[in-house]
């Protein structure tokens, strides 16, 4: 944001906007810290033989930390993504509380399970706690680097079901 401000010669506007985002973000993170329930997350899904997971120090990984949620690779030091075989995911994330993923077009739980039989071994498939974001109609990728506090709000409500902040902007439960 500040960089774009410099680029377009509107630094003061960018700085003031950034201050708003930062204040909101920190407030949300504080609220999350006070929650009594914390759940664990399973992100994304299998592409061929690998499952791409965010590293502990990646932008998404840091969001999970700031939301005070449980993520099995929180202690990982990578700032990029990790490519793991399904065995590892089953071992480390098999008992996750909820699953979040992004999709395009028409998608539902039946289609998800049709992709790979092994998904049924994961706990979120049995409990139904699968949340998707339709990225070809919701500007997830476009907004996230601009207003990370909006995504943080969604994540906090997923990690801590006792907190209610606002209707979820990106994720909805997959039918």
């Amino acid at each position, binding site marked *: 944001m500040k960089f774009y401000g410099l680029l377009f010669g509107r630094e003061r506007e960018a700085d003031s906007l950034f201050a708003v985002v930062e204040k909101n973000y920190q407030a949300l993170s504080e609220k999350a810290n006070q929650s009594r329930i914390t759940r664990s997350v399973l992100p994304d899904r299998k*592409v*061929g*033989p*690998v499952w791409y997971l965010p590293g502990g120090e990646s932008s998404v990984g840091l969001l999970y930390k700031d939301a005070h949620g449980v993520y099995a690779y929180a202690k990982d030091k990578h700032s990029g993504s*990790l*490519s*793991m*075989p*399904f*065995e*590892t995911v*089953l*071992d480390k994330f*098999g008992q996750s509380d909820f699953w979040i993923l992004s999709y*395009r*077009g*028409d998608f539902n739980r*039946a*289609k998800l*399970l*049709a*992709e*790979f*039989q*092994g998904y049924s*071994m994961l706990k979120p498939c049995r409990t139904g706690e699968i949340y998707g974001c339709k990225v*070809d109609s919701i500007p997830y990728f476009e907004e996230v680097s601009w207003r990370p506090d909006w995504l943080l709000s969604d994540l906090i409500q997923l990690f801590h079901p006792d907190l209610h902040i606002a209707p979820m902007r990106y994720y909805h439960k997959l039918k």
Partner: protein
Amino acid sequence: MKRNIFLFVVLSVSIIILFGLNLMTGSVHIPLSDIWTILAGSFTGKESWRFIVWDSRLPQALTAMLCGSSLAVCGLMLQTAFRNPLAGPDVFGISSGASLGVALVMLLLGGTVETSLFTASGFLAILIVAFAGAILVTAFILFLSSVVRNSVLLLIVGIMVGYVASSAVTLLNFFSSEDGVKGYIVWGMGNFGGVSMSHIPLFAFLCLAGIIASFLLVKPLNILLLGPQYAESLGISTRRIRNILLVVVGILTAVTTAFCGPISFIGLAVPHVARLLFRTENHQKLLPGTLLVGTVIALLCNLICFLPGESGVFPLNAVTPLIGAPIIIYVIMKRH
């Protein structure tokens, strides 16, 4: 004779050892004693471990064996029939036909096939269209085979068909989303682990049917070695043999590409390894030898894919050329 028996025994033992190693290797460490109890059905520990051994590692090892043997046999038959040491199952564009089908479903239709007869999505959709695409290309090549007499010309036409399919795939990729392209590219890297245990019986049946059919072609293949003129003078219709061969190769390649994606190099390199080991061109020994070597190499490649252990996995088509290319270079060096 003694050498051949020795080789067969060594190869068979290697297969058993590699199969066991494949069951023991993965990113999750499962002790050997537990693997035995899981296979025996009396395991009472973690449910995920039972799944990993029965539904992940076991079908993956079986798939590797079936793919390796099928593709190796295809490669041998093509190399003999077309008298070309560089012929392989992917040379006729059969894999490209399968790739085009998969690209259409993944990139254009968004992963679901809906017709008036049925709706399929996910793995099943990929399976059906890959098989259909490969069979269509095979049928086209078969039609051309009845028109084009010269084997070299048929080979060239086949390669051109492959190029046309690839150009359509390039177009589809260009207009797709990031996720679509990534999904398609990863499919193209090959994967022995995509076949679930419930699909193994069908897959095994199709592969074994093709392999048994190829064994029935041993005598004609031996005669083809003499060259087309001698073969014709012995009363063999080279065109008929070539057509039967194309059907068998087409179906085997279609099945393996549909279930595992296009797997490079095994069909090309393994017949040469078998020729080096068995020192014969007699298909009576060479065909079963190629089958065994193909199985060994496929199991070995699958093992190498899991070398990173806890930190990840290698894609299959990155490993097979590493094994295959040095062999090809060695063959070329040795010939000249």
